[in-house]
């Protein structure tokens, strides 16, 4: 039974989305900047998309900037805000468990002369608000925090952080990397004190190579890509019309049945954790597993096995999972998140991530549990000595 449990790496595209993308590529292929009818049709696709996406965030369509995905959105948010506001200060705050798209960009900004504070997290991967409060300074221009951690599914106290930031220092901007959170939670930037929000299309059953950055109107930000002045000059380059339309279609679809799907994933997650804990000993689930955690991510350390070997053994049974963080598993890499939550050294290499989607079924979860119970004891028998 093919069981795809690597949805935090990427998801299957909704068939409707694929169909729409294909239709736009072959029929409505105009350039939105062209003056003729074909251009207008394309432009309307972009406008519609911005409207649909804005609706999911209770935002204005003019606040949606399309990018090539989560990484570009994060880069634009951080670099664009830092450069535009450097006269107000050169201090930035983020956390130790961010995605490399944030951490590496912060490293780059440090080389441009910015100072960055990296907040630690507790054993569940959660930022402590008092740490944030202590770190905030009068010259802090931006705080960047992820909504959901991609490795362990910790849900950060984003709304509380937003309120705190605005209370302590109203001019500090707040960016949220919601690549793993959008579609899994209802997000209302204006209520949560969020000024910028990054989203990626392919994590919500949309196409790859498309994403957006929500930029609250009034935020001071400069572009990082220059050219023909598309998207009000904030992100030049001919709009990826099929991608944009596909992204909007996926966003609409994922929020359409939001409540039922959220409950379904949450229940499967609890079932998975409960059953596996009963059947296998010496395993440890990382981060919180209750309903305050992300409904789709399960991180488990299984002592005595190497995650990569288990991954390939599961692959042989058509179960696809990820070892640590998928973006980085093809190079020797110690997970920053797992280190930050103090997972024991010998378990770092034994940690595997299951991530579900709206398409995950109970049969697939049962099959996965059954397969794990068959494989793990065998793998534990053969280990390096």
């Amino acid at each position, binding site marked *: 039974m093919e069981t795809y449990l690597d949805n935090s790496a990427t998801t299957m595209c909704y068939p409707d989305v694929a169909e729409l993308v294909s239709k736009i590529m072959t029929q409505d292929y105009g350039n939105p900047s062209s003056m003729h009818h074909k251009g207008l049709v394309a432009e309307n696709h972009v406008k519609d998309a911005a409207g649909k996406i804005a609706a999911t965030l209770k935002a204005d369509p003019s606040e949606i900037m399309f990018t090539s995905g989560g990484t570009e959105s994060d880069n634009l948010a951080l670099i664009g805000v830092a450069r535009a506001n450097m006269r107000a200060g050169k201090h930035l705050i983020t956390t130790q468990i961010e995605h490399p798209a944030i951490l590496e960009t912060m490293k780059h900004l440090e080389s441009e002369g910015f100072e960055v504070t990296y907040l630690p997290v507790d054993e569940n991967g959660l930022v402590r608000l008092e740490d944030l409060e202590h770190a905030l300074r009068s010259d802090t221009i931006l705080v960047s925090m992820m909504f959901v951690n991609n490795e362990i599914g910790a849900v950060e106290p984003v709304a509380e952080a937003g309120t705190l930031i605005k209370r302590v220092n109203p001019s500090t901007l707040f960016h949220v990397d919601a690549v793993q959170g959008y579609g899994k939670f209802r997000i209302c930037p204006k209520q949560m004190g969020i000024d910028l929000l990054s989203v990626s299309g392919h994590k919500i059953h949309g196409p790859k190579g498309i994403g957006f950055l929500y930029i609250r109107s009034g935020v001071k930000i400069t572009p990082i890509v220059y050219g023909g002045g598309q998207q009000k000059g904030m992100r030049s380059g001919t709009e990826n019309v099929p991608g944009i339309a596909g992204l909007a279609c996926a966003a609409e679809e994922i929020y359409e049945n939001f409540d039922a799907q959220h409950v379904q994933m949450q229940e499967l997650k609890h079932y998975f954790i409960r059953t596996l804990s009963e059947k296998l000993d010496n395993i440890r689930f990382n981060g919180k597993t209750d309903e305050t955690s992300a409904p789709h991510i399960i991180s488990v350390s299984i002592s005595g096995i190497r995650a990569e070997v288990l991954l*390939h053994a599961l692959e042989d049974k058509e179960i696809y999972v990820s070892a640590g963080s998928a973006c980085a598993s*093809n190079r020797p890499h110690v997970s920053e998140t797992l280190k930050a939550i103090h997972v024991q050294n010998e378990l770092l290499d034994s940690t595997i991530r299951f991530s579900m989607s709206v398409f995950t079924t109970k049969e697939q979860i049962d099959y996965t549990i059954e397969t794990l119970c068959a494989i793990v004891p065998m793998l534990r028998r053969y280990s390096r000595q």
Partner: protein
Amino acid sequence: MQYHAFVIKYAEIGIKGKNRYIFEEALVRQMRRVLERCEGKFVITRVAGRIYIEASDFDFDETIANLQTVFGITGICPAVTIERDENAKLPDYQHLSEAVIKFIEGVYPDRHKTFKVKCRRVDKTYPMDSMEIDRSLGGDILEHFPEMKVDVHDPEIWLNVEIREKINIFSEIIPGPGGMPLGTSGKAMLLLSGGIDSPVAGYMIAKRGVEIEAVYFNAPPYTSERARQKVVDLAGIIAKYTGKVRLHVINFTEIQLYIYDHCPHDELTIIMRRYMMKIADRIAASQNCLGLITGESIGQVASQTMQSLLCTNEVVEDMPVYRPLIAFDKQDIVDISLKIGAYDTSILPYEDCCTIFVAKHPVTKPRADIIRKHELDLADKIDELVQTALDTDEVVEIRK
């Protein structure tokens, strides 16, 4: 400069006496093979100890890059040729001198250089002898380009003028890979692991004109599909030189686990390697190979001490084991790996089957008699497992 010919230099095969034509024909065959994948028209002729390529509508860089993969070529000289006229008469000296001046103009934009003219007159009917031509051309060049200077001992430009069935003018010699043309030796079986050493070992033996087959030991789920793909890619790099590589993928997991269960852990690697050699030997024999090739180098790791080599060597019954890197330092191996373009692939961090169960302290001085004794504990099932591995040999044919 618009070249339209290449003079191909080859060294060793020039000395093979009566067998020489076999080598030259093999060399021409290999040149044809690589030129087939290049843009352009090429005519290869072989006359009196020289091979010429006439080229038209071709891409210079692509042609050179491909010729540099032909073993046996020591130098590639891009040349300008002057043909005989309709009466089969070679151009007179005046004509030749003009061509030489034009050649220098085209090839050397900066002419603040020392030079020497070296003429070879093969066609003795040409009215001037080679010494006269050297002197006269030297004089003409100095007159045209006062910034140039003669240096007969260590010139920056060696200007070669060959007078034969046509006149060839060339100065630059682009190095070839050397070695012997492919297909003049035989076939050998390379144990290809995915590391840095084994592709280099394969390349070096191939360079002696040897056709390469390879065997890779796959250990799913302990090794991944990407590790296997990496080995296919490495075989492809060797195939760039040899045209094709037949890669045998052997599933080794069961054998490895069986050894794990029955032998002392610190001897696991050495025993495993003995079985790899045994299996390679049997496949090689069945494929009419004349030798095994490994990337071993004395003392590099525990399984490559002299004691370990003795231990793994003794299980090969049918043929010699060639170990071209045996006395190489790691850096020298890395240099060759970089040169043949294998390095970036070799260092991709995928686990190979030799390291998955490696003990913290593997034996470094195994004694063959003790190893043989411990292998008796495998007697129950090992022959059957080896046979299954051989029966499920998956062959990947890689052509370039």
